[in-house]
């Protein structure tokens, strides 16, 4: 399909994609608010996601206050507690992590990294953000509806989710939640089509798939997965909405509520669990794969060394993406299923560990004898690796049916998924923001504040979640508002719980330092210049920083090499940008 011409002097092939006619904004509104520029949309996505994420952060404080000091705060009664954990989980997983990785980083980095001027369907891209914003508003509005938001748990299992015993079940809460998710899926699909087609069709000349930075590979694969997995959530939400509003019995069995026989009958709650986890498990990797990709680029850049085993990394991303669709029932070991199915899903779950471990080895081997700069992005990348290994290993425990069944309803599971799906991707998000903030704003983030932020967050996260594994192992159940006098656990867990809560408050406070840093450095940060990290990928080679509308000025970049030419022997500098034909010469000198 492709042939290689090593002769630099040869005539350049004609562009594969014609230079598009860009949409040009005419007013302040279309430039900064209803903008079709992927970079502005990315910032809008990012700000909205972080804003709603702060709500989830405050909710986690409230949860921890109740667990650490039960009975002290009258505000947090059992109903509110369940509402808080539900909203905390849903916001963090979908409205923060998914939106920030795909809508935020995807929008900012894909066009710049593949050498395009913008996404291929800018209008749909703009709509995607506004629909996402609507979903967030509907979600947030449920706090102010009669009965408050739903307290069904983030998995929204029926039948309890639509019954009166659950907060919001017979009120507005569950309706708002399901509507918000439906809106989110519609909005995401519009954005997702953009990300996929831009990677497929929008690449600059010379940017073959195997020259893509791993960040793009991660976001691309995650988007393909999301496009196939989100319909399951969509169908499940629509069907549950029918059950709740129109009295159908898709998921609702015959049930007596408060002594009253309800209209429902024959429905299958397990059916909902299948649909939900068919979405829910790929969702874990929808969040993890962009993180894998970004962290590969951070490590390579800040260790001044090419990524170890690039091909293997690409294959592993694709294989993980494929495998993640056939493991969903490992979330349902305690729901009851054919033992052979349990065996099948345990096997596929453990097999996923193979490509994932390859990735971890490759990160470590990239660091091996690299010229490691302990910059903030590197610190966060290192924190990601240890945290991910930690959470991944407990995942191997839980993937086995016999281990999962006793641990499933304990704090061990909470610790596991917060490590692997909460802390680890968030570390990458922070690292990525410290890494790309200079490109987005033209200024560096403050180093001192960043160091405080990193060390408090990293050590604090371990202080929170490490003891939680222990709590789980000695049998402290999750989802309980208050443990009370429980004879099956020692009373000393109260002190451990209080310690965890104090640490949670502290880590939360560190995020305020981070937000302040984001705002402060906008004005007072050190001037960054175009390429402060001396990185090879295309986004650092734009003629202007921050890149203007259209990214590349008059001429699209041409790509001559892969994304990881660091410390090439004999080269005058320790990095060679992707658009540089020979060591020491810039592309626009040879391209006429």
């Amino acid at each position: 399909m492709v042939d290689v011409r090593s002769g630099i002097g040869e005539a350049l092939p004609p562009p594969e994609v014609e230079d598009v006619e860009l949409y040009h904004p005419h007013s302040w509104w279309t430039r900064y608010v209803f903008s079709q520029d992927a970079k502005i949309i990315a910032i809008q996505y990012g700000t909205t996601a972080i804003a709603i994420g702060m709500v989830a952060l405050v909710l986690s404080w409230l949860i921890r206050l109740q667990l650490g000091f039960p009975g002290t705060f009258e505000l947090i009664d059992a109903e509110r507690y369940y509402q808080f954990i539900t909203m905390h989980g849903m916001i963090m997983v979908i409205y923060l992590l998914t939106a920030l990785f795909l809508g935020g980083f995807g929008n900012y980095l894909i066009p710049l990294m593949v050498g395009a001027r913008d996404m291929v369907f800018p209008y749909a891209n703009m709509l995607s953000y506004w629909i996402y914003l609507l979903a967030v508003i509907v979600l947030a509005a449920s706090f102010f509806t009669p009965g408050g938001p739903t307290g069904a748990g983030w998995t929204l299992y029926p039948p309890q989710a639509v019954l009166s015993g659950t907060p919001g079940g017979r009120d507005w809460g569950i309706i708002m939640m399901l509507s918000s998710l439906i809106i989110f899926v519609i909005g995401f699909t519009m954005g997702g089509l953009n990300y996929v087609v831009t990677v497929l069709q929008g690449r600059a000349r010379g940017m073959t798939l195997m020259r893509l930075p791993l960040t793009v590979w991660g976001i691309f694969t995650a988007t393909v997965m999301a496009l196939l997995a989100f319909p399951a959530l969509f169908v499940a939400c629509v069907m549950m909405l029918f059950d709740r509003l129109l009295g159908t019995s898709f998921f609702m069995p015959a049930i007596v509520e408060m002594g009253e026989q309800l209209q429902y009958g024959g429905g299958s709650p397990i059916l909902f669990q299948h649909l939900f986890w068919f979405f829910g498990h790929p969702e874990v990797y929808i969040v993890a794969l962009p993180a894998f990709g970004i962290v590969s680029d951070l490590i390579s850049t800040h260790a001044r060394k090419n990524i170890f085993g690039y091909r293997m990394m690409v294959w592993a991303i694709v294989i993980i993406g494929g495998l993640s669709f056939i493991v969903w029932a490992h979330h349902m070991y305690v729901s009851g299923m054919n033992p052979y199915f349990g065996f099948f899903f345990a096997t596929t779950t453990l097999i996923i560990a193979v490509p994932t471990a390859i990735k971890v080895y490759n990160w470590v081997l990239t660091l091996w004898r690299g010229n490691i700069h302990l910059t903030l992005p590197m610190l966060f990348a290192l924190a990601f690796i240890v945290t991910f290994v930690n959470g991944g290993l407990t995942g191997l425990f839980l993937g086995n049916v016999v281990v999962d069944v006793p641990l499933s309803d304990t704090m061990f599971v909470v610790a596991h998924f917060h490590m692997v799906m909460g802390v680890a991707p968030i570390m990458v998000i922070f690292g990525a923001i410290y890494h790309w903030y200079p490109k987005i704003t033209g200024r560096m983030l403050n180093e001192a504040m960043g160091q405080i932020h990193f060390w408090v967050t990293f050590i604090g996260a371990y202080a929170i979640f490490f003891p939680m594994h222990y709590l789980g192992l000695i049998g402290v159940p999750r989802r309980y508002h208050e443990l009370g006098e429980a004879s099956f656990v020692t009373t000393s867990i109260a002190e451990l719980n209080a310690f965890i809560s104090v640490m949670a408050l502290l880590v939360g406070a560190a995020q305020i330092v981070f937000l302040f840093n984001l705002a402060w450095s906008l004005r007072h940060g050190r001037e960054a210049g175009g390429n402060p990290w001396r990185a090879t990928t295309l986004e650092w080679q734009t003629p202007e920083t921050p890149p203007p509308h259209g990214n590349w000025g008059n001429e699209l970049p041409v790509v001559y090499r892969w994304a990881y030419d660091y410390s090439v022997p004999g080269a005058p500098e320790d990095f060679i940008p992707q658009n540089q034909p020979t060591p020491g010469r810039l592309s626009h000198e040879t391209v006429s």
Partner: protein
Amino acid sequence: MSIVAFFLAAIAAIVVWWLAGQRLTSRPWLEVGHFHDRRGATRLPPAKIGLGVFLAVIGALFSLAISAYFMRMASSDWGALPLPGLLWLNTGILAAGSITLHWTRVEAERRNDEAARIGLLAALALGLAFLVGQLFAWRALSDAGYFLAGNPANSFFYLLTGMHGLHIIGGLFALGRVTAHASQTPLDNRTRLSIELCAIYWHFMQIVWLVLFALFAGWASGVIEFCRQLLT
């Protein structure tokens, strides 16, 4: 979930076939210089790829819903509902719309603008007629006492036809825009591409409808038996 498994297997096959042509085994660190991508000759417009990906998403949506249909069908309270004869007519109308759009596309390729305009209007009318027909079919069923919440079979019938109808409405919006655009100016390449995309979308919705129709008529039970045997 076996239906979804088959659908995903099909998608996976396409992905693997595509990846196989992407030189995933190359050694990018050794290959410096121009890469000449020979796909240039058969390069598809982004909108077409976008539509293809979108159809995959719709396919996932319907195959998940159909999977749910089969799983729910296994319970004892399932009572199949009689299909209104009108659905046969609707199927014919939808098929006629699909054929009309195909003809329109061919005429547009032949630079036969007038015929293409007539074809677009006819397809639009047929699409609207299909929707009206579906509404009448709903009326007929509810008049006969088959309400949404009465039985899971009814619920699924209304849910699936409703989802299909919404997709047709979306398609009609796009088709309406193309028609309005085509009626004012001579057809250019962009409009021709839009017509082609509409035709592809219509064919796809036609296939989805045929699958749903077979499902409601009970012809698909043979398929599901086969799937069961594969799994056990």
